[in-house]
């Protein structure tokens, strides 16, 4: 009919009006900040005085910044400590909740998921109480165990104030907090697997483990990949937990507890090194992006 583009746009003007709020907000709170912070990463700026261009100086400093490197290391260690047990626990719980014979499934599901609707600040404070060295419940329980089995007797552990135990303490909290979330996702994945596969396998004489290996695990792959990426992002940018448990300090005993999220926050809003913080955020986001792509490739490869 040869009507021009302008006419077609005008005919669909409501479409553009309806999507415009998103684009307006995105321009102000997404696109402009994205570009601004990219620019900032090549400058020195405290938000008040003049910005100075430093080229790649910020990025060069990052490599020698011991606190930055320590924060990356701590982030990695915490991730390695909590993600595997969380995944395993979530998967086992999901499998159990997916069976027909487990009683009280609704109650179990609620119990495991409850931590996910709780403010992190509350979680961190309650765990701090439980972890308290002199009067915490955990050391008390461990002491009781030592009384009953003398070979297991140990000194009270300084969970939050010693180099050695801060990260395991945080990891335990994270397992508690996030297992239910991953469980719910995995359960949805399991429920999405058609029972026909299992029936066919059973007719072919496949045992429990064969069914797990050849049906459940391959079909759950997309869910695992999703959970893995969420955990990666959550770990790298984790903030509240560490911030509260160290009471806004440098992150635990010395520098052994500071993670990337807390260091980024401190650099930005305690030290007001906006340029340096931007370069840090960009650098890490780049690596998180690469790692996410790597994990996503797992989704496609065949078994």
């Amino acid at each position, binding site marked *: 009919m040869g009507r021009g583009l302008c006419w*077609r746009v005008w005919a*669909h003007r*409501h*479409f*553009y009006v*309806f*999507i415009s*709020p*998103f684009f307006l907000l*995105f321009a102000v*709170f*997404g696109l*402009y*900040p*994205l570009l*601004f*912070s*990219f620019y*900032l990463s090549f400058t020195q700026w405290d938000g008040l005085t003049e910005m100075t261009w430093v080229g790649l100086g910020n990025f060069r400093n990052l490599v020698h910044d011991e606190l930055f490197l320590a924060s990356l290391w701590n982030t990695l260690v915490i991730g390695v400590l909590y993600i595997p047990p969380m995944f395993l626990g979530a998967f086992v*719980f999901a499998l159990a909740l997916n069976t027909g014979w*487990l009683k009280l499934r609704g*109650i179990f*599901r609620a*119990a*495991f*998921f*409850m*931590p*996910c*609707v*709780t*403010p*992190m*600040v*509350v979680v961190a*404070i*309650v*765990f701090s*109480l439980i972890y*308290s060295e002199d*009067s915490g419940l955990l050391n*008390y329980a461990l002491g009781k165990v030592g009384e009953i089995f003398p070979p297991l007797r140990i000194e009270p552990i300084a969970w939050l104030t010693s180099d050695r135990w801060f990260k395991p303490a945080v990891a335990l909290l994270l397992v*508690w907090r996030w297992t239910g*979330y991953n469980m719910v996702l995995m359960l949805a994945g399991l429920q*999405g697997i058609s029972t026909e596969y299992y029936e066919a396998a059973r007719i072919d004489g496949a045992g429990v483990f064969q069914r797990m290996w050849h049906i459940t695990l391959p079909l759950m792959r997309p869910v695992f990949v*999703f959970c893995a990426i969420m955990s990666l*992002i959550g770990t790298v*940018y984790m*903030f*509240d937990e560490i911030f*509260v448990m160290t009471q*806004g300090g440098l992150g635990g005993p010395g520098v052994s507890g500071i993670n990337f999220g807390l260091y*980024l926050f401190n650099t930005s*809003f305690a030290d007001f090194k*906006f340029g340096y*913080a*931007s370069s840090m*955020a960009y650098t*890490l986001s780049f690596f998180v*992006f690469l790692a996410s792509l790597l994990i996503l490739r797992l989704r496609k490869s065949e078994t």
Partner: protein
Amino acid sequence: MGGWKRYGMRLLAHVPMAGLGGLFVFPFYWLFISAFKDRDQIFKLPPEFLPDPWILENFARVFRETHVIGAFVNSVVIAGGHVAFALFLCSLAGYAFAKFPRAPGRDKLFAFVLATMMIPGAVLLIPVFAVLCKLHAVNTYWAMIVPGAASAFGIFWMRQYASENVHNDLLDAARIDGCSEFQIYWRVVVPILKPALAALGIVLVIGIWNNLMWAFIVLRTESMYTLPLVIYLLQGEQRIPFELIMAGSVVATLPLLVAFLAFQKNFIEGITAGSIKG
């Protein structure tokens, strides 16, 4: 032959599940009973698994001596405003993307929306704060309500739901009846989208109600603080008033917890629907 054995195994499997379930609930139990102890009872050894005596005045004191009531109001206003605004924005755009297939550039614009999901929040902290400063919005509700509301994930979700559940003949009938396009959205589409809006709303509420970091950055005076912020800052006082922190924590935790226990199914559906599709 294996029937009894299998039955026994299944029965036995309930024991570790119950034990682990108990461990997961335990911190909540500890939180709630600690809110009824005085400071010495909280740190007493051996620990009191039931407060002796029960201290009820912690709650009266936390309302009187701290800003918990004001913070509760702030939290409700911010959560309500943020969720309402985000739901409006996402459903409007999601509906448009689903139901105007011939609009020029629709697919490219939608691809753009999806691409924005990959932007990491960490690089936005400082510049968004700077923008809010420029707009004189620091220390206002707007600073909490608006910046995160343009959720690409929400638009994606609403588009999905609208294309499956909103039928074109319904829209055409409304057009013939002389409804304006916005009336169609408001009177016809929104009621159909309700279940999806509820699910998305739940996800958004969990995020904003529990938010600490952004509140810490943009809220500057006591009269503006939210519940997580008030609770966090109580820790900074001399001789930390743990009994008040615990009572305040109960106030901050209960609304979502009760809502979750009452609408468990909706919560779980919300979390999974959003994630698996996204």
